[in-house]
């Protein structure tokens, strides 16, 4: 099963670099060929709030970083030499200016770019960005200039579903998990932390909700996208018709063309539950995925359940889950992992990586069976991505 493509084989010969975005800067960790030792490069942008750093998989050398500081407005930095030099985007993501004399709600301003997605191989200069307040933006020139994309940002119904800065996530609702179908650049998925999962099949000219089967907080209407809180949406690279989702209310799988999500988190241990932020899918096996559960009980501590962190893996598309905690602290570890802070490389065996809210970077070279800590004492980690460098 799965598409072990030539592209994947090529990627296996490349060196892995981990891109760590934190509340106070970014760090790059360059792996040796065996992924046994890691050379640190950083900090980049010390003191800046970095939400996401991505390596362009199409050239293996261009980096984009989503940044802001406590005082200053948001921007995007770009490097074409793996971070030796950075240049600010000429036109960062910004909402359209409100019409002169407009009444009612004033125009919105981007507080921060939260998510970056490189476009498909067929569109080498395209990037997408998701922001808070929730908006979708696109660059057609490699991340130098950005413009609002699709109907989403100003559509009245979507604006209602998006809510305001007071709804949901503490530092503002976020448009995240922008996914481009690798077979069709016009087929997009997005998730809104306040507003649900949505799909476009016409290059963003229209979107429609994809929320059937998803639970919402008790007492609210599951048919209203407003009340949906997807935490992380992933497409299985080896089977693009398969989606997985870690949601505020459980873990789900959807095999298209079906449109009703199945709650595969029901088979998680009851004492752990199926609440969490990140989810990662195996690059070549669509039945294998990993999650990092957190405590979503009572006041939502958002820590590892019982202070005992663990990754959980499924090898059968969610029918069963196995606890993977060898090497992780056995107790008294009260951190968790945010939605962008867990990732996989494309090597064989797959390397898994996650960064914690307490500033630790953990790695597994054997698909989660054993874990070791690469770095400690970093600022709060917001995102970890694994890229493969062009030699």
């Amino acid at each position: 099963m799965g598409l072990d493509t030539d592209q994947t084989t090529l990627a296996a010969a490349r060196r892995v670099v981990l891109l760590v975005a934190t509340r106070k800067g970014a760090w790059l960790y360059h792996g040796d060929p065996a992924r046994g030792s890691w050379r640190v490069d950083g900090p980049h942008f010390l003191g800046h709030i970095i939400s996401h750093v991505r390596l362009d998989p199409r050239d293996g050398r261009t980096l984009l970083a989503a940044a802001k500081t406590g005082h200053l407005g948001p921007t995007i930095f770009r490097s074409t030499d793996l971070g030796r030099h950075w240049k600010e985007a000429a036109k960062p993501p910004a909402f359209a200016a409100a019409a002169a004399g407009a009444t009612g709600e004033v125009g919105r301003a981007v507080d921060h770019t939260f998510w970056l997605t490189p476009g498909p191989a067929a569109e080498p200069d395209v990037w997408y960005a998701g922001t808070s307040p929730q908006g979708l933006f696109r660059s057609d020139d490699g991340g130098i200039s950005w413009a609002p994309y699709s109907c989403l940002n100003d559509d009245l119904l979507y604006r209602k579903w998006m809510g305001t800065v007071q709804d949901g996530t503490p530092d503002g609702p976020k448009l995240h998990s922008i996914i481009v179908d690798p077979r069709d650049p016009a087929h997009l998925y997005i998730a809104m932390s306040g507003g649900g999962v949505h799909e476009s099949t016409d290059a963003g000219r229209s979107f429609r909700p994809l929320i059937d089967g998803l639970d919402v907080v008790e007492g609210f209407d599951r048919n209203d996208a407003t009340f949906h809180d997807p935490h992380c949406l992933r497409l299985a690279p080896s089977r693009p018709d398969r989606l997985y989702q870690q949601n505020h209310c459980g873990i789900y799988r959807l095999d298209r063309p079906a449109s009703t999500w199945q709650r595969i988190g029901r088979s998680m241990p009851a004492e752990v539950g199926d609440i969490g932020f990140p989810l990662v899918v195996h690059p070549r096996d669509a039945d294998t995925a990993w999650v990092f559960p957190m405590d979503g009980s009572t006041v939502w501590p958002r820590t590892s359940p019982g202070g005992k962190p663990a990754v959980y893996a499924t090898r059968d598309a969610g029918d069963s889950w196995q606890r993977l905690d060898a090497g992780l602290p056995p107790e008294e570890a009260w951190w968790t992992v945010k939605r962008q802070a867990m990732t996989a490389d494309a090597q064989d065996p797959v390397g898994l990586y996650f960064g914690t809210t307490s500033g630790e970077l953990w790695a597994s070279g054997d698909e989660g069976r054993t874990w070791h800590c690469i770095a400690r004492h970093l600022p709060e980690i917001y995102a970890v991505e694994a890229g493969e460098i062009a030699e």
Partner: protein
Amino acid sequence: MKVLIPSALRSYTESGWAEASGATLADVLADLDRRYPGIRFRMIDEQNRIRPHIRFFVGGVQASDLSQALDADAELLIVQALSGG
């Protein structure tokens, strides 16, 4: 006019003081952006609002209106105003 640049924006100017001209605060900021591309958007959002933790002072008095007229002999102080860990 002389413009005092806060430390958070000196990556643009590479200096604590910059020169910019214009009849209003908006004009001066536009001129500053011509000289140091990108600096204005870090202070003023896409709806022409001063960002929450940026303050402007002219002659010791806060300027909160971008249309405020400025004296070419005055000094514009840009201040970053934020605390916390």
